[in-house]
Each structure stands twice: as C-alpha cells, then as structure tokens.
C-alpha cells in the first residue's frame, strides 16, 4: 500500500481534496501562531471530535496512524520537564499531534486519484505562467507507479537474503535495490523515448 486509506468510508471522503488541503494548511499556520496551551487543547479536542464524528473504527485507525509520534512526544515532554517549561512542552505536543492528525485525516479520506489531481491543480498556476510542468507530472506518475514496485522488489531481496543467511540483511539489500532502480530507470527511459518522449504522451 503506497498511501494510507481509511478502513471505512466516511463523510470526510465527500469533501473535495482541495478544500481539505487548504483547511489543513490554514489550521497548521493558525496553530503555529497560537501560544496558549488552552487553545492548543481546544484544537486537539476538536481534532478528536472530527475523527469521532466518522465513527469509532475511523477514530482508532487515526490513533494508530499517530503512534509513530510517541518517541518524539516523550523527548519533548522529558526535555521541557527537565528544563522547567513543562507547560510549553505540553502545548507543543498538543500542536504537533493536532497538525499531524489533521493532515492524516486528509490523506486517509482522499483517494490516490484525488491526490494526483491535487498535484495537477497545484501546478495549474505555474502552467499559466508558460512553464512546462509536463516533466514534473510524468515524474510524479512514475514515483507513484514505481514506489510499490521497488518496495515489493526490496521485500523479495530481503526474503532471498533470509533464505540464504542467518545474519540480518539490513543495508546489504541496498546495493541490489539500487541496481534494480537504475535498470528499471534505463528501461523506462528507453520506452519513453520509443514513444516519442514525454511531451508526446497524452494526458491519459
């Protein structure tokens, strides 16, 4: 899975992705401008309500997606606690969790095609200036297409290593994975050239 989807369809899925993106951007900036812990707490509780409004399954999925933050939160709280600024640390933690939770809400409730469309719309003003954004759009499509391919191939390399050795593989698979990426890049570049180059490709 390249991006993280919601386990259930919610009312947030109906909101246009551009609106969600702009809301996350505005809320993030606003939360950065607010210093009061009480306001950060209100923002955090509002985030919880936004998730809960889509049901408990969605709420738990959202909490699960925030678990990666615990070491950072621990460091912030311990550090600020030791330096006598515990309240400031708490406000910072609440802000961090709220902003990441909001951006996760957008990611979880937007389809891959919607996110790709968002990228295209972000490029629209640049295109109007006469700048060719086609290579960037092709690069975006290639990343989205080839990341899962490389992840699968990396997984196969790890499996192959485990089958041959009791030692842990880790970075040893990095070299064959780089070779795979380079060889794939050469093949895709040739295929692109054979079709007349990126500028000849249609939007579909």
């Amino acid at each position, binding site marked *: 899975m*390249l*991006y*993280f989807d919601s386990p259930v369809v919610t009312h947030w899925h109906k909101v246009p992705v551009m609106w969600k993106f702009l809301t*996350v951007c505005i809320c993030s900036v606003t*939360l*950065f401008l607010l210093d009061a812990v009480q306001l950060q707490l209100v923002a955090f509780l509002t985030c919880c309500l936004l998730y809960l409004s889509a049901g408990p399954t969605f709420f738990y999925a959202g909490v699960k*997606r925030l678990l*990666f*933050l615990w070491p*950072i939160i621990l*460091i*912030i709280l311990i*550090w600020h606690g030791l*330096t006598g600024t515990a309240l*400031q640390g708490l406000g*910072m933690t609440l*802000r*961090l969790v709220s*902003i*990441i939770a909001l*951006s*996760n809400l*957008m*990611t979880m409730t937007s389809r*891959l095609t919607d996110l790709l469309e968002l*990228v295209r719309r*972000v490029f629209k003003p640049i295109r109007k200036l006469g700048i060719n954004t086609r*290579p*960037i759009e*092709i*690069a*975006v499509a*290639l*990343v989205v297409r*080839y*990341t899962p391919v*490389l*992840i699968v*191939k*990396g*997984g196969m390399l*790890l499996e192959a290593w485990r089958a041959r050795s009791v030692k842990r593989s*880790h*970075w040893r*698979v*990095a*070299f064959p*994975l*780089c*070779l795979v*990426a*380079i060889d794939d*890049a*050469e093949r*895709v*570049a040739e295929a*692109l*050239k054979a079709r007349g*180059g*990126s500028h000849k490709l249609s939007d579909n």
Partner: protein
Amino acid sequence: MDRDVVFIALFAALIIALGFIPPIMLPVGVPITAQTLGVMLCGTVLGAKRGALAVLLVLALVLVGLVPLSGGRTGIGLLASPTAGFLIGWPVAAFVTGLIVEQVRAISIVAIAIIASIVGGIIVLYVFGIAGLSKNLDKPVLEAATLVLVYIPGDIVKAIIAGFLTGALFKARPHSVLSRS
C-alpha cells in the same frame, strides 16, 4: 531530458522504498533508517541538480500525502514536527553531496562519495536539522544540537555505505552514475 526525468523519479521512488527496510539499531540503542542513505545516494549517483530534484519530488509528494516516509510519516503536518528542519535540508544536502562528487575527480569515486556524503548528508543536513529543531521546540541551538548528536555515528556509517554503494554502482553501471558521466 526524458532520461533525467525518469532517473529523478526512480530515485525518488528508491528513497521511499528504502524507508521500508527495517532500521539498524546502533549499540547505544538509536535506530538508523536507510532513508537518509537514499538522500546521500541521490547526490552521489545523480549529481547536484538531479539529486536535489529527486529529493524535492519526494518531499512534495510526502507533504501532499501521496507517499509515506519511514514509519508511515506523511502529510503537510510533518512541517510542524521537530524533525522538519531535516526534511527541508534534504534537497540542499543532496545538492551539496552531488556537487562535490561532480567537481572533485582527482580521487577515487568511493573516497569522494564518502567525503561528499559526510559534508552534504551530515554537516549541511544537521545545520538545517538543528535549526528546525531549535525553532519547533523553542530551545537554544546548542541545546537542540545535543539532542541530535547521538545520531551522528549512524549517519557516518550511512555515508560510508553510500560511498561504497556508489563505487559498486559505478563499477556495475558506469553510464548510469550520472554524477560522473
């Protein structure tokens, strides 16, 4: 042009894929992920401009929420996290790393790739990382620096790996190491 676009895209995909390799635990208990190894490799293999563009592409897609970094981190909210400075520093780190590899041809590619990775992927990156940490945690720069010092041994290991990987790639696919072609 098209070859450059494809290489930039595939190396961007590689950075994301490297985030799925399980982290190595250092003896001091600090986990190091292969993702910053990908940033160093973008510079040493693709060169300054293409390397920086590949990393910028990853960042843009991560911030929009299209792809995740290691640990499933994604979305514009990452700019609020204490490690935001490191993310902002990634393209500059790849650019400096690539520039050194492109310009210095008097010594072996392995040696210069290691040196370039240390300068770009550690020194330059940590300047951004520490500044971001200091800003987002509202702490003095020196205090912020003490927090990240523990990661430097792991990054030196990554720089050495990046050097040897670049050398091996140069031996296996000399025309595909764009920083030297």
